[in-house]
């Protein structure tokens, strides 16, 4: 069972570059989420989606964009990378109760 799959696992970006973090789930969940986790800190919600075509901001949306064209996919876009976006990014999906997480993307902006 694949569950939630994130790609890439690691990435180094230069300041000002752009990239898309990919997230796919095969559990037919309506709800999907993007979190970032800084060292020693908790999970902070960036964006979430309650279904295809519907997205909303979380706690820390600045500098990020999302789209949800299908139930399975929820990509996260960084348009102009900044050092403050160095973090580990987790995608999650949920049905009516618990959420399941991907293995994360470790992003470094230099």
């Amino acid at each position, binding site marked *: 069972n694949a569950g939630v799959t994130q790609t890439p696992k690691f990435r180094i970006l230069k300041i000002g570059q752009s990239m898309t973090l990919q997230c796919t789930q095969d559990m037919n969940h309506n709800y999907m989420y993007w979190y970032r986790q800084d060292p020693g800190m908790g999970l902070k919600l960036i964006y979430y989606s309650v279904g295809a075509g519907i997205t909303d901001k979380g706690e820390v949306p600045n500098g990020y964009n999302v789209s949800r064209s299908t139930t399975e996919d929820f990509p996260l876009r960084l348009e102009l990378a900044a050092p403050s976006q160095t973090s580990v990014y987790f995608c999650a999906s949920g049905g009516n109760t*618990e*959420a399941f997480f991907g293995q994360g993307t*470790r992003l470094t902006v230099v």
Partner: protein
Amino acid sequence: EDQVTQSPEALRLQEGESSSLNCSYTVSGLRGLFWYRQDPGKGPEFLFTLYSAGEEKEKERLKATLTKKESFLHITAPKPEDSATYLCAVLGSSGTYKYIFGTGTRLKVLA
């Protein structure tokens, strides 16, 4: 505002020394309280869901309990492989489907 506070921030135990982790929460209508385990460099791994006060769930050396204000994760006779960060989260019934996470308890079990 929905809120989750976990304590202690860090805990060191000797192998076999039982203890409990605390998760205090405030939420407008509890849809569910969740416990996760997170190993370094990995995504959170789902452990338990609790729905109502008085409910208990068990898995191997772990037992989760729930009251109207807090949840406990009891670890009985822990082993070094139980070392991880344990996260608590709540989902309220406020209309938005957002999980609120605590900052976690870092558990280290010494052999």
